[in-house]
């Protein structure tokens, strides 16, 4: 019979230990996991990325529900273990569940340290520790303006940056005279403060909080010097303490954390502790790398494998996850009587580097501004290599000290297989080499997908890249294309965040500030940036016609022979004899080679010469159908109750309203709509980006369908009763897509990426829908019919006509 293993705590430390155990001894234990939070195991260090908008809640899940099923693990979420009986070997929860164990792991992590201030129990006073805190912050930012973060350490600054991204005014209160004093020396700290102030953060240093004021909800904070500031939200990020209450009440030896030996055993037999709740040789770690190292030792012991010397403690490094700021710190970085330091301070470029040396060995480092050497220096600290005589090269690289320092590739080559490359996810050099050689990984991204190396903080990316080069040679490395195009490594969200946060209003500014590798971009990023800028700053951004793809610049579809097609707007697919006669006459006048009815219920005039376009538009005197644009194309309708004997609602009328409302709207990719008058759905609304189907007494709203390359049926968003509600929901949905979609990403792909639940949650509350609608109205209010605009402006008009020259000498 299998032995029973129980894990208390569904966090990163415990679950990673179980993962390693399953690899070593897949069938040894019957495993049960208890977690207090109602989520599967997620990556807590990435919560700041969620707040920063770089990742969704879904992106940070490490092991989803199916992982537990596949490994036959019984998972109880929302259950808090309240007692451990070490003699009978059972645990019991607040929900009344009782489970016996043969081996027990306590991985209860840590709790945010809440200052015992008067008023700390008021509404609007929170910590920054779990998904719920993030949700509270996001919610608060929608209703309130001012936020105050208590704590100028790593966590506090990440929370503050996140709140800035959410559009709040943020002040950081710190008891110390300078920021991140546990990771940085004063020089680096001052540079950091300057940088963050540039991003809009305000600082109140050397301030001691006295009490929190307000009636039911917080309205301000008072300091011990008597001064006060007003705020709508207080985030306490002053530190964490190991969560030991369960262990303590169960009679396990506890200091600051649960006391463990080198094999992670507690004072009670068959009970181990791992992660932030554990105290090893007097240290309770609050960072992620040691958790994996502890977990690895514990997994080996539980699997009955050789554990060698056990766990010997960890050298830790930290990296601040705040966009636009690179900070790295490791080991002992403060000067002492027996240390010497090599420093480089460049205030022009905002770079500061310091390496601390004792007895010929590197024991610590602080890097600010340029952290590319972080992993190289960190590996020197860990290896304890003697650097006597080449101290300067450690800091400055080979060029400074006469060319004997090793390059990154040589350094990784010299590492042993069991050395850890990715501290966040505990991935060794050997595991990565295996992934390259056996699974054919040929880029950092593939290695990340395969091994999780560099998947968390990303600090080891240069090291992984060096290792890849070392194994396959420079020619075998695939070009890494992560950015929105080859000009940048930044993704969509980072670019949009920069546009918002730094108030960038032209693509030239974006490319300059974000250091594009091609100074004027390429055919991929130029149209994308033009879209993002117009989306974020509808009034301020001036349309960059030269960044538009030909079809959107000329407001017609270019065909393979260089001619164009013209599609006038026909709202809801309804036309009149008068309009049809005019279209026929014009097709005749300009000798249009082909006239065709489109799939979107309108007429396409194909084979028009570019120089004829403006005159044809003038003759037509109809609005542009935008058949060429990343915009609303058509709203297809069926006849509906107007004539059809089955129709239950006026689908034509609804369709015309939608098309009139949203015509000319720029979207990340084209948007097609349809309205059907009954569930027979003759307008095929279930393969459209937004579909409306009449039901008895209302409308059913459908989203994310696609009838193109990849067929995808819609998901039902909701049911509503009135036409006004259809317009409200469609406006909110379109604006949410505009604000979160990647350029060129259809709603079907977008929905798959961010999830239907995310969309539903964003549109659930009426106030949120109204806010989105208000923003889309602002954009819609600025649009003009492009054909009329070109006809009216001679300068635009001229560009359609070639210059004809007689060949003369």
């Amino acid at each position, binding site marked *: 019979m299998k032995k029973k293993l129980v894990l208390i705590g569904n966090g990163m430390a415990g679950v990673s230990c179980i993962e390693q155990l399953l690899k070593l001894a897949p069938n040894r234990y019957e495993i049960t996991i208890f977690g207090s939070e109602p989520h599967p195991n997620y990556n807590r260090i990435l919560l700041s990325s969620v707040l920063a908008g770089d990742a969704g809640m879904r992106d940070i899940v490490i092991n989803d529900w199916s992982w537990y099923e596949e490994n036959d693990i019984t998972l109880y979420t929302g259950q808090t273990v309240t007692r451990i009986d070490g003699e009978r070997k059972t645990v019991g929860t607040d929900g009344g569940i009782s489970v016996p164990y043969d081996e027990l792991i306590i991985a209860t992590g840590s709790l945010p340290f809440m200052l015992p201030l008067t008023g700390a129990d008021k509404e609007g006073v929170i910590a920054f520790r779990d998904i719920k805190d993030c949700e509270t912050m996001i919610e608060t930012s929608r209703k309130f303006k001012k936020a105050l973060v208590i704590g100028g350490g790593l966590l506090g600054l990440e929370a503050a940056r996140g709140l800035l991204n959410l559009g709040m005014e943020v002040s950081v209160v710190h008891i110390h005279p300078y920021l991140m004093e546990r990771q940085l020396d004063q020089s680096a700290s001052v540079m950091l403060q300057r940088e963050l102030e540039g991003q809009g953060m305000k600082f109140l240093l050397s301030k001691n909080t006295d009490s929190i004021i307000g009636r039911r909800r917080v309205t301000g904070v008072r300091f011990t010097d008597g001064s006060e500031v007003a705020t709508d939200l207080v985030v306490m990020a002053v530190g964490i303490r190991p969560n030991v209450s369960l262990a303590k009440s169960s009679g396990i030896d506890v200091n600051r954390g649960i006391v463990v030996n080198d094999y992670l055993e507690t004072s009670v037999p068959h009970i181990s502790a791992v992660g932030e709740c554990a105290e090893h040789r007097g240290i309770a770690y609050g960072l992620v790398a040691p958790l994996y190292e502890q977990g690895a030792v514990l997994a080996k012991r539980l699997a009955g494998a050789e554990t060698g010397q056990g766990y010997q403690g960890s050298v830790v490094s930290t990296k601040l996850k705040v966009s636009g700021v690179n900070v790295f710190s490791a080991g002992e970085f403060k000067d002492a009587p027996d240390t010497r330091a090599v420093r480089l301070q460049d205030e022009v470029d905002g770079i500061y580097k310091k390496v601390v040396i004792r007895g010929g060995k590197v024991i610590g480092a602080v890097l600010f501004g340029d952290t590319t050497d972080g992993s190289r220096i960190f590996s020197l600290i860990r290896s304890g290599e003697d650097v006597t005589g080449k101290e300067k090269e450690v800091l400055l690289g080979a060029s400074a000290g006469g060319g004997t320092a090793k390059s990154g590739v040589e350094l990784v080559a010299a590492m042993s297989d069991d050395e850890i490359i990715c501290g966040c996810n505990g991935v060794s050099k050997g595991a990565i080499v295996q992934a390259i050689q056996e699974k054919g990984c040929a880029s950092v991204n593939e290695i990340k997908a395969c091994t999780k190396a560099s998947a968390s903080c990303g600090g080891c990316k240069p090291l992984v890249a060096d290792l890849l080069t070392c194994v396959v040679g420079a020619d075998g490395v695939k070009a890494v294309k992560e950015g929105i195009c080859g000009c940048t490594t930044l993704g969509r969200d980072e670019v949009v965040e920069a546009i918002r946060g730094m108030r960038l209003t032209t693509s030239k500014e974006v490319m300059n500030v974000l250091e594009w590798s091609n100074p*004027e971009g390429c055919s991929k990023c130029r149209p994308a940036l033009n879209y993002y800028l117009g989306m974020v700053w509808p009034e301020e951004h001036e349309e960059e016609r030269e960044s538009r793809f030909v079809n959107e610049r000329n407001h017609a579809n270019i065909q393979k*022979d260089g001619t164009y097609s013209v599609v006038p707007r026909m709202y809801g697919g309804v036309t009149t004899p008068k309009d049809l006669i005019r279209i026929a006459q014009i097709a005749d006048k300009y000798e249009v080679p082909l006239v065709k009815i489109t799939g979107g219920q309108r007429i396409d005039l194909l084979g028009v010469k570019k120089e004829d376009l403006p005159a044809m538009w003038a003759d037509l005197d109809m609005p542009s159908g935008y058949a060429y644009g990343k915009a609303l194309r058509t709203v297809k309708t069926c006849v509906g109750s107007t004539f059809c004997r089955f129709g239950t609602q006026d689908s034509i009328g609804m369709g015309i309203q939608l098309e009139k409302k949203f015509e000319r709207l720029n979207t990340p990719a084209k948007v097609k709509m349809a309205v059907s008058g009954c569930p027979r759905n003759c307008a095929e609304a279930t393969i459209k980006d937004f579909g409306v189907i009449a039901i008895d007494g209302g409308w059913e709203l459908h989203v994310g369908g696609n009838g193109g390359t990849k067929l995808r049926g819609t998901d039902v968003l909701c049911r509503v009763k009135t036409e006004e509600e259809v317009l409200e929901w469609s406006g909110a949905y379109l604006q949410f897509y505009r604000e979160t979609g990647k350029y060129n990403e259809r709603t079907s792909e977008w929905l798959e990426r961010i999830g239907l639940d995310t969309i539903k949650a964003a549109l659930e509350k009426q106030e949120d829908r109204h806010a989105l609608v208000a923003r889309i109205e602002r954009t819609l209010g600025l649009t003009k019919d492009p054909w009329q605009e070109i006809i009216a402006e001679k300068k635009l008009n001229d560009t359609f006509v*070639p210059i004809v*020259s007689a060949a*003369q000498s």
Partner: protein
Amino acid sequence: MKRIAIGSISEIGERRSRTIRIGELEIALFKLSDGTFRAVENRCPHKGGKLSEGIVCDHHVFCPLHDWKINLTDGLVQAPDEGCVTTFEVEVDEVSGTIWLHVDDEHILVS
């Protein structure tokens, strides 16, 4: 060699182009962001796409049909694609703003 006046610098916007027809020959004339001009045959060596409709980035243009990248200074198609388009010398009279194109007779005759 012919020297042909084709218009004034004010007629072209930055990073935009105009099409010039000389008999049967069609030339795309580009104004770069630094204010200088480039002229190439208005025909992508791939499928004959009209380069004048492409997006201009520094001294390159991307063909609107299949995104080939072409260097407007030497006419060379950029990797991974291969090929070459004919380039023409552009002369600008700084005072009057007149633009002149230098075109070989053979180009006019051949096309």
